């Protein structure tokens, strides 16, 4: 072994020494930003399916989409509680049914042509018509052009979340002429994806240089970008697993590592700075209310017992750096989040009392969870085991039923789990997305919580869905979540920490729950 090792090293040294000699007279495959500007290397565990904004709905896709395309409205930095103008300013009707966008400035696409209202109408209609992953974002929305600078979006129902939705990179504005020339349509027959996987057609700070879905995305600065010139002229986003990311960012071959778990983010060398904070994902436990599924979990006293039996602080510690207690189903970064003081409380004595009242007799209860799911570096089996032992302490017997996520999703979505451990990430950073956790709605039904199961909660839902001013919405959603914590079948547990490790030379690093990182705003020192 020693012998071979030395041999490899010698070969390597020879190869390196020979490099400059051999290079003379040969073409080079090396690239840079073109004008000698800096290259930024980002390590990310890929879940990339496409670079076509209208079809992507994965974190890596959002990260890339944000760099390539601009949206009508956007968020400032890491703050997603407030929508700010992007390509356009917004005028919203009081009933939250009519949204008028006026294009500002004179944005240009990367080919130098001007961005017009026609491009906006085409891009949004294309997303609706393609019936792809992000199409639901604009369900029930009608898009019309008023004049060259003005676009009007109307909805049948009050949709106060629409501005927050429109900040999603999936709704980025495309160069309609270019996309149409390459098979783009406003229907499911659209064929522009292949083109958009090789070239971008947007007005964002970067253009797509090359894309390999399984290994690497390379971006170059967009010379026709009308905003501030990005610091890094060339950006390489490469597919790397968490453990390797840690070594890379310390070794210097990566400038930024996006997927370190809490424990991995500890003990990094001093040249690396870690930005930790709670992610916008909420891990929760569900207890099925359907009596046909389980007589035990549908008992309100049993639900109360579980809520008091869980040691929430212990789970926060378990999840590691950056993790925060989830006070309600809405994560802390969003409008409508519940203050920590209103979170559920651990109280073993109360748990035992409620358990006695429920008539529970030591029967085992099954807890289903996705065994291969890792969220922000946190593995679901670890949390499930901890919950099992916490519940055992008050006398509840839990059987763990792990299954691959692709398999378990079915059982979950069909509402057949007795107890389930899952998470919800915001589809868009607006509290309306969390109405899913109410009686008769998507996630509510997964917990066997039928439409008429809890009229008191349903009344609060109607109030929260109606819209209103920011203050009114905050109050309405807080009230709704307090009621959910009191009588709902969901137990919000933690928002696992998000850790971004970057070389200390990279500045302005901040986590945004929608697109993770705004590459164009990163600086250098």
């Amino acid at each position, binding site marked *: 072994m020693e012998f071979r090792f030395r041999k490899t090293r010698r070969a390597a040294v020879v190869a390196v020494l020979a490099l400059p000699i051999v290079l003379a007279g040969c073409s080079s495959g090396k690239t840079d930003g073109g004008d000698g500007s800096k290259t930024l290397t980002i390590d990310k565990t890929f879940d990339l399916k496409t670079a076509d904004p209208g079809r992507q709905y994965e974190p890596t896709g959002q990260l890339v989409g944000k760099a390539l395309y601009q949206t009508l409205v956007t968020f400032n930095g890491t703050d997603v509680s407030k929508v700010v103008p992007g390509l356009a300013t917004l005028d919203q009707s009081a009933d939250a049914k009519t949204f008028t966008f006026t294009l500002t400035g004179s944005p240009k696409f990367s080919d130098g042509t001007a961005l017009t209202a026609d491009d906006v109408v085409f891009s949004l209609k294309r997303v609706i018509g393609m019936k792809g992953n992000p199409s639901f974002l604009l369900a029930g929305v009608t898009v019309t052009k008023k004049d060259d600078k003005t676009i009007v979006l109307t909805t049948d129902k009050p949709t106060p979340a629409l501005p927050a939705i429109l900040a999603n990179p999936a709704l980025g504005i495309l160069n309609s002429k270019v996309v149409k020339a390459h098979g783009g349509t406003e229907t499911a027959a659209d064929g522009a994806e292949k083109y958009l996987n090789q070239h971008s057609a947007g007005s964002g700070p970067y253009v797509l240089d090359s894309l390999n879905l399984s*290994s690497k995305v390379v971006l170059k600065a967009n010379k026709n970008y009308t905003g501030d010139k990005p610091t890094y002229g060339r950006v390489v986003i490469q597919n790397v697993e968490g453990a390797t990311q840690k070594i890379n960012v310390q070794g210097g071959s990566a400038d930024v590592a996006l997927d370190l778990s809490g424990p991995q983010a500890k003990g990094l060398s001093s040249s690396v700075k870690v930005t930790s904070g709670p992610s916008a994902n909420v891990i929760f436990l569900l207890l099925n209310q359907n009596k046909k599924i389980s007589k035990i979990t549908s008992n309100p006293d049993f639900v109360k017992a579980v809520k008091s039996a869980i040691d929430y602080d212990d789970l926060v510690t378990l999840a590691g750096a950056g993790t925060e207690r989830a006070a309600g189903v809405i994560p802390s970064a969003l409008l409508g989040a519940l203050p920590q003081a209103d979170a559920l409380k651990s109280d073993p004595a109360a748990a035992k009392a409620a358990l006695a009242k429920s008539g529970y007799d030591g029967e085992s209860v099954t807890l289903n969870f996705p065994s291969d799911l890792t969220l922000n570096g946190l593995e679901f089996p670890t949390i499930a085991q901890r919950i099992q032992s916490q519940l055992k302490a008050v006398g509840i017997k839990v059987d763990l039923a792990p299954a691959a996520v692709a398999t378990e999703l079915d059982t979950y979505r069909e509402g057949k789990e007795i107890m389930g451990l899952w998470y919800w990430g915001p589809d868009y950073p607006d509290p309306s997305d969390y109405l899913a956790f109410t009686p008769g709605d998507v996630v509510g039904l997964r917990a066997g919580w039928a439409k008429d199961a809890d009229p008191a909660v349903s009344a609060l839902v109607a109030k929260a869905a109606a819209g209103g001013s920011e203050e009114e919405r905050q109050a309405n959603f807080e009230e709704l979540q307090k009621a959910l914590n009191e009588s709902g079948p969901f137990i919000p547990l933690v928002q696992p920490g998000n850790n971004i490790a970057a070389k200390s030379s990279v500045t302005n690093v901040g986590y945004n729950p929608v697109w993770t990182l705004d590459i164009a705003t990163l600086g250098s020192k």
Partner: protein
Amino acid sequence: MRAPSPAVPGGARPGHPFARYAARRILTSLLLMVGVTFVTFALTNLVPGDPVAAALGQRAADDPATVARFTQEYGLDKPLPQQYVTYVGNLLHGDLGVSTTTHNSVTSDLREALPATIEIAFGAIVLSVIIGVTLGTIAAYRRGRTADHVLRLVSLAGLSVPTFWLALVAYYVLYFKMHLAPSSGRLSADFNAPPQVTGLYTVDSLLAGQLDTFLDAAWHLMLPVLVLTLYTVGLLTRFVRTAVLEVLDQDYVRAARAKGLPTRTIVTSYVLRGASIPVLTVVGLAFGSLLSGTVLVESVFSWPGIGSYAYQAASHLDLPGVMGVGLTIGLIYLLVNLAVDLLYGFLDPRVRLA
């Protein structure tokens, strides 16, 4: 008057015995391939879980129109037997369907992933054979002596250390601590992939005349090849030792020794030729398994090979992707087995006459 043609011994089949043997083996392989398509299709579709739910987001999967578009696009709305017929029909035209994860044709995905794996697997097998045969022969010749014990220990270590762990440690030590190896991936961040011809970066970069890309690609091959070699060498050394020991006891080897032939001649012309059949079997199997999935090693070194592709396809219930990988791996094993069988026939006349 013509003389009657001499009877063919053993029956009526004319032709060279090796050609007949080869034809028989190739025909069997083709039949096996058809079997592989059926088994892969059946197994893939037996997996519990809904590919629609796995491919679409939570919200999109709740929208009937999006689900309808998806099932129609990927033909999932048709009954299974019909899906199978369509699949095999497309397969005959070299079409493996469209991946639900990458939205690319599976054929083009595999055309990128397979060469990446071939590059490391080929390097590893060549190195392993050279080292394994040498070490195994030495161990057999020094049976019971210190060299034998040491080599046995080394090969046992190579076999029992998990490659995933070995890969991480090798990466940590050689890249991060000693700066002797490059970072993960097939190329440094400064390099773009050479224009695709074969998909092997080392070959393609030379074809494009980009020597710096070639050196960078070769440099990046070092660690994954080293880790895979350590594992395969352990396996080979053990097999070569056993095979050589068996041959050393044969009469013809004793006769050669008695004649006073030099040891080198005995080893190369008598011992290794005699031991080649069992060793070839193991090399074939080892190469097959290297090619068909070094998932964990690929994952540590961010190597976008067929192992990573298989993992990604399986975790997203990407049925066309899984099928494509299954068939490719089946094909690889068949081809490797065929090659090994044909080599048997070539090396040992007894085989082709059987």
